[in-house]
């Protein structure tokens, strides 16, 4: 990070509306914030998301920085609080997540009903579920690869896939249990 006091001076100038100083400040702090978050979070993507949230928060609450005080504790407390928010949200999501690490085996029952029924069932899925189903069951991608391609988290992809399997199974084998 820049010399102590340099960031404080840039922030003080940014509070006056100096765009150049503000750009210099954000460009100086963003790699530092990213590194701080990357050490504490599980993935680059999570650190990236939270890092952007930190920059947004810095922008929104920039008036709460007092130029006479050191800048770093102000910045790190924002980064820490955004990270805690993220971890809480992740924990909440995990508690709702349905484990599909072992994907339900549907091919045996589906073979009996024929491929047409399967095609109709897949075609009737909402686009995001259909995409998840095709990537995992047709293309044989891993959940991580499929999540990356869909641009969503692994948890979200698993939920989509599970809903798709359930819907397909229900459509093809109407008296099946979920």
């Amino acid at each position: 990070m820049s010399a102590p006091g340099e960031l404080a001076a840039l922030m003080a100038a940014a509070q006056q509306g100096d765009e150049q100083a503000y750009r210099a400040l954000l460009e100086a702090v963003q790699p530092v914030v990213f590194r701080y978050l990357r050490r504490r979070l599980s993935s680059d993507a999570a650190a990236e998301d939270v890092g952007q949230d930190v920059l947004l928060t810095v922008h929104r609450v920039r008036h709460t920085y007092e130029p006479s005080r050191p800048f770093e504790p102000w910045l790190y407390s924002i980064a820490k609080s955004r990270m805690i928010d993220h971890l809480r949200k992740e924990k909440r999501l995990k508690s709702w997540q349905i484990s599909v690490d072992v994907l339900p085996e549907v091919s045996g029952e589906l073979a009996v009903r024929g491929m047409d029924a399967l095609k109709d069932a897949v075609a009737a899925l909402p686009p995001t579920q259909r995409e998840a189903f095709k990537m995992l069951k047709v293309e044989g991608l891993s959940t991580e690869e499929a999540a990356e391609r869909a641009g969503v988290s692994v948890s979200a992809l698993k939920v989509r896939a599970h809903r798709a399997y359930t819907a397909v199974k229900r459509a093809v084998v109407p008296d099946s249990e979920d």
Partner: protein
Amino acid sequence: MSKTQEHPGGAARGDLIDRLVADLKPVEAIKTARLYAICFGIQALVAVIAFWSFGLGVESLARLGDPVYLLLIGVLASSAAACTLVALRSAIPGRGVARPISVVLLLVPVLLAAGVSATSPWGGAWPGMLPLLASGKMCMAKISGIAVFPWLAMLFVLRWLAPLRELATGMFIGLAAFLLGAFAVQFTCNVNDHYHLAFAHYAPVILGTIAAGAISAAVLRRGRSN
């Protein structure tokens, strides 16, 4: 290549930085001394208005020579002030207060209720639930009525700041306001029976803090997302 693009995800961050810079407007930096003065000024004003509106209890004034009574009102006043300070500090990034101090402050009304119940410094006999409610309802109403104004005023001030832990900040502004209410009512109420104190003076502080904390947190979170 700009500095931002040398890092993973740098392009997205670079784009974000462009947008933030484009959105930059001059802002007035906070002055914490002024904020403290405003908040303590509001509390002092509310206490004066409460004394003026409800009058001062003769017996309570006579008790000012009693060290236990002085300790009680001292704890109420100093806790209200400390909670105000903690609420303000928790709404400014980089300040905050050590967790043990926060925990002790949040427990003050519980400790007061437990303390007067256990020691019963001025005696007291169980009057039954209905008489207790009848004798206490005016004090509960006064405490809540006094607390509303400083709570709303503090909420307004803190919305302008940056509370990062909304529930904790909300609890402290609620607790500060209700402790102030309990402090003011302590002077206007002549009943010092420990059941009355615990039920009609400190229980409303506990319940009011929880309610004010929940409402404040919702308001502050909404302010953050706007």
